[in-house]
């Protein structure tokens, strides 16, 4: 896959694959295109060249379907300032056709009190909310861009537990993170840039 922004070649011929239960680890220096890659995989950006194929039981998912089925955690994901964590999650549950209980469970698992409005949350709390949002619909495709950023020990532990559970249930993950972050079940590595 390739993607450029005008003269800037953000992603050049990146290629990889990952199967259910596995993790594709994406590494590289700043500005090498990790975020661009994940955005393309999430359906938030269209690559200039190349294809993305998500296959389930021999059938390939259309990009719209893929977009609605991914669990995406990234630093720039933001929620509504005026709504509390709980209200934000209820909204996304309603949009996805899920019962509101799902949000409650995740808030508890991640140790996040749901009453504070998003604008008043610390960066660590926001990161927990990002994870809650990403996992609401028990996604089979996890796209994680610097997912443990801003976490304290407790937050990271909770997130890693949830990640392990999803992987054990058959989800796959593409994770972009600095090289010193350990990842579970790594089945492949994609080195970008340099």
């Amino acid at each position: 896959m390739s993607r450029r922004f005008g003269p800037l070649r953000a992603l050049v011929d990146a290629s990889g694959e990952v199967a259910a239960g596995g993790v594709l680890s994406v590494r590289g220096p700043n500005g090498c295109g990790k975020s661009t890659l994940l955005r393309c995989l999430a359906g938030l950006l269209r690559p200039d060249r190349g294809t993305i194929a998500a296959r389930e039981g021999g059938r390939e998912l259309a990009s719209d379907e893929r977009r609605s089925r991914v669990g995406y955690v990234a630093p720039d994901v933001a929620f509504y300032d005026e709504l509390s964590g709980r209200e934000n999650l209820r909204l996304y549950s309603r949009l996805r056709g899920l019962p509101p209980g799902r949000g409650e469970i995740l808030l508890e698992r991640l140790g996040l009190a749901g009453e504070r409005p998003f604008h008043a949350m610390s960066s660590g709390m926001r990161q927990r909310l990002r994870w809650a949002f990403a996992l609401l619909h028990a996604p089979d495709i996890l796209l994680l861009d610097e997912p443990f950023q801003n976490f304290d020990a407790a937050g990271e532990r909770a997130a890693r537990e949830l990640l392990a559970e999803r992987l054990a249930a058959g989800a796959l993950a593409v994770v972009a993170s600095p090289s010193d972050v350990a990842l579970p079940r790594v089945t492949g590595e994609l080195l970008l840039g340099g």
Partner: protein
Amino acid sequence: MSSSWAAEAAAVFVKDWRCELRTRHAVATLALFALTTLLVASLVLGPIGNDAEMSRRVVPVLVWLIVLFAAAAGLPRAFVHEEESRTAIALRLAARPSAVFAGKLVHIATLVAAIEAIVAPLAVALFDLRVAAAAELVAALAAGGLAIAAATTLLAAIVAQGRGASTLFAVLALPVLLPALALAVAATRVALTGVAEGNLLTLLLLYDGSVVVAGFLLFPAIWNP
């Protein structure tokens, strides 16, 4: 993923109004622009409703220019804010484009109705207007308001992804809204004078329908990459 489309659209609509009621940002902007322009016009023109000719020629276009001006100032935020604060990302992932379009369209339409609810009664009072056909006036306001809402929903979504959103919105909106505004102005004139001028409302509703249908077809391409 088994939510009904209508439930999704309703969720978007409710969210927009919930946030709006907590900040009152859009309503305040709309009210401010509408009132300021209306008061300036009233100051300069006085109770022109007394003059039948002025009433016929000036008032309808004045009213609609005020509504348009307020709309251009306060409505694009519905999408610009989502993009700027990055909440659009989660919305793109969690909701169907058609539901986002429908929810936003109804939200923007209610905001337009709010502008008109401020402008129309005040205009009647300040200019001492004589309304020959009140039902016609309401119909003109509704049909014209829907045109503004539909076009705004599409155009705001477009400009939110570019630079200089507010000025760009006005530039894009004028050619698109010109026919609707002309029809709405004429329909308003009919309502004030009582003199029929052909099937204006039908044409206006046809315009509304066309833009809404086009909106449903185009919005996915505008909203998603």
